[in-house]
């Protein structure tokens, strides 16, 4: 029997039905059509499905849909304000920090979580925080440059 779940996603109230065994990732992508969150492994190893659940960065493939009951979720779709990109998104583009782009939504969400926790990370801190987000195209160099530039820009704007 499906469970009825009431939650908040990107500041909007959302209700959905899901099997108790369905992951939050599956619910977002298949039940709610929010395909910005990607699946790379389904085992919590690649970070492509990163979302923020009640302020905590998680792999949505390791969270059940029913765990969203009463929670607040932030996905990549909520990072930009309508048509205006978030600083992190803008810096990823300026630094060419994506090639194929499939890991990018997870990295944007994870970077936002990093900078919320630590507005002035060292490069090593950024590399370790983002170690759960695999990228096979870039070798991470331009991603880290985009992250450090985002942090500096956001500090200036704060």
């Amino acid at each position, binding site marked *: 029997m499906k469970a009825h779940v009431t939650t908040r996603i990107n500041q909007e109230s959302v209700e959905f039905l899901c*099997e108790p*065994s369905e992951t939050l990732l599956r619910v977002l*992508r*298949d039940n709610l*059509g*929010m*395909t*910005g*969150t*990607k*699946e*790379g*492994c*389904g*085992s919590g*190893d*690649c970070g*492509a499905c990163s979302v923020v659940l009640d302020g905590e960065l998680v792999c949505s493939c390791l969270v059940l849909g029913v765990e969203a009951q009463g929670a607040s979720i932030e*996905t*990549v*779709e909520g*990072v*930009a304000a309508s048509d205006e*990109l978030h600083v992190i*998104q803008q810096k*990823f*583009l*300026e*630094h*060419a920090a*994506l*090639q*194929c*782009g*499939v*890991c*990018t*939504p997870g990295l*944007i969400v994870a970077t936002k979580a990093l900078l919320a926790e630590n507005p002035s990370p060292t490069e*090593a801190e*950024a*590399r*370790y925080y*983002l*170690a*759960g*987000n*695999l*990228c*096979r*195209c*870039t*070798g*991470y*160099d*331009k*991603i*880290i440059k985009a992250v450090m530039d985002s942090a500096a820009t956001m500090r200036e704007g704060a």
Partner: protein
Amino acid sequence: MSEARAFKHIGQRTIRPDGFDKVTGKANYGADLALPGMIWGAILRSPHAHANIRSINTERAEASSDVLAIATFQDFPSVNDAASAAGTLRKDLIDTAQNILAQDKVLYHGHAVAAVAARTEAAAEAALALIDVDYEVLSPVLSIDAAIAEDAPLLHPQLKTEGLVEPADSPSNIAARMELKKGDIAKGFAEADVIIERSYDTPTVHQGYIEPHATVVNFDHNAPSMIWCPTQGHFDVRARIAQLMNMELGQLKVVASEIGGGFGGKTTVYLEPVALILSKKAGRPVKMVMNREDVFRASGPASASQSTIKLGAKMDGTITAMQATLHYEAGAFKGSPMGPGCMTVFTPYDVEHMYVEGFDVVVNKPKVAAYRAPGAPQSEFAAEMAVNELAAKIGIDPIDLRLKNAAREGTQTIYGPKLKVVGLEACLKAAQQSEHYQSPIADGVGRGLSAGFWFNIGGQSSVIINLNPDGTGSIIEGSPDIGGSRASMQMMAAEVLGIAPGKLNPIVADTEHVAYNQTTGGSRTTFATGMAVIEAAESVVSQLKERAAALWNVTTEQVDFVDGVALNLAGEDSLTLAQICAAAEKTGGQISGTANINARGAGPSFAVHLCDIKVDPETGKTDVVRYTAIQDAGKAIHPSYVEGQFQGGAVQGIGWALNEEYVYNESGVMENAGFLDYRIPLASDLPAIETIIVEVPNSFHPFGVRGVGETGIVPPLAAVGTAVADAIQKPVSSLPCSPPKVLELIMAES
């Protein structure tokens, strides 16, 4: 094109046009499409690495109300059609079919055997248990040594070695042999003061794209059937399905979704033909998505290899002879990249006497797929390791040794042609002068370097440029954009048309909306599709001049076109591109330019990489502390994405050298089929990857472009291997240099 040319847009770092959608999650990749009425397919995979299939019984599945369709090998009409089978049907097509769905044998653990479709993904997966397969289990063949042993079990009882001097009379697991010669190898070794001979091996590795294979197929009797998939070559997906299913190309429409990495691994078909069969039978759209475990077990990988290298040199550093014996695992079906491995192994060297022999060996592992410069990393790893050891033995700087023997314009390659202008010496000199190479080496750190070569290819590309009445426009191309190529196309068209790149919208069209394009691979897209973009834009410029001439009532010869503006040479008038477009209605209708080319003259791209590695003597753990990639781009269209190719190739090579390998148990089951245990490099594993773009223009391209995508994965293996050897002062001959193996080397008696 030797003189430096001033460009307005080429060489700038513009924002990619598809970037907004990719940073906001709006871009649609393979698994992101859902269609009304869509059902799900799932694949039953072999639990054995090597077995005969006695029978496949689908009766219980057929009887289930959950199951809407079933597919097996018997559903490939072309392969099962007696007339085609007896005629000219190509063996490689049968291999492709048997790899997609096994016929009478399973040849690796995870080999697809049958498929079902059901209303949900979970129901489809559950229904797989209703298919009964009776196997006769055979001994698996899991290494080159096991495959070529006298009494080795045969994967294919009909397979005979091609390329032997005397035609083979008995079957073998060696599918092919290749021999390349230059000069007189015996004479070369006779001239040598120093001779070294070493053997090396590399593991099976995976391309490791983050996006698993996925497809949505909607079979249609009355209109072209739609295949949506992430692929490097949607036209080739169409061709392959047409061959397998006995369909006309016009009955198929393949839509390339955004692609989440490929590196050569998405140049073939796995799920797409199966989904088509299921969709046809069920009368509904079918979606199929591989999980990560299946991606490891049943797609990719790249060949494991064993190589023996013998080098001879004089004490002054002149290399007199280079010899290689190279074995490549093909996986379950013949066709490893042994050929290009043989052709590339010694190409960075201008040496008179060379001899190379290669073997293509089948084993009970997944059929290998292309991986970035396919074949070259394995063979050049062995050659470059040996060259570095030779330099140490003679007591000469490894860059000086290479400069003394470097391939240059006019060098006779072992595979036939003489090289045109190439940038190897420029890369070596840039490496020698780099701050990295000049810097002291810290205690406990080793330094290594390696050169690398890859051919690059040209081939067919088709492009349409349409201009709108306000002077904006679209570039319709057919090369899937795997790493920012839309930006390059926009910049090249903008350069010719003299307008801002952002005025042009690049579109990767499906197979119905643009003529045939070869696969995005072989480092060809910016070179060849770029050449088509330039030609289409030049066609647009000549039309703009004609239209301006018509407006001014002068001849076309009296019109010049500079930086987006037509100039009347017979008067003072000028018209911008947008003004000419606005008046196009009056001068013959709207303006389009097309180009359909088969690009010749792809320029090879040489690279040199430098690597510093720190080794923990107590655990064998390695840390890359500094890395520099130097490569000839000919002309960098978008320098950031060129650097990105260098960096991405370097890091894939670092992973290959330090961590990545398929670990098999004795039954032939891969024991690390996930990203936790098959460990690709993480952000925390790496330093900044420094880059130096060398530009030695390719004379065959209007802007001087050489492909840059693949070469970057060639040098890291030996640069890393040599750095590890230097750090621990022990020879390294086997990849990956994982902590247990490095520790074993450290502990070994000298």
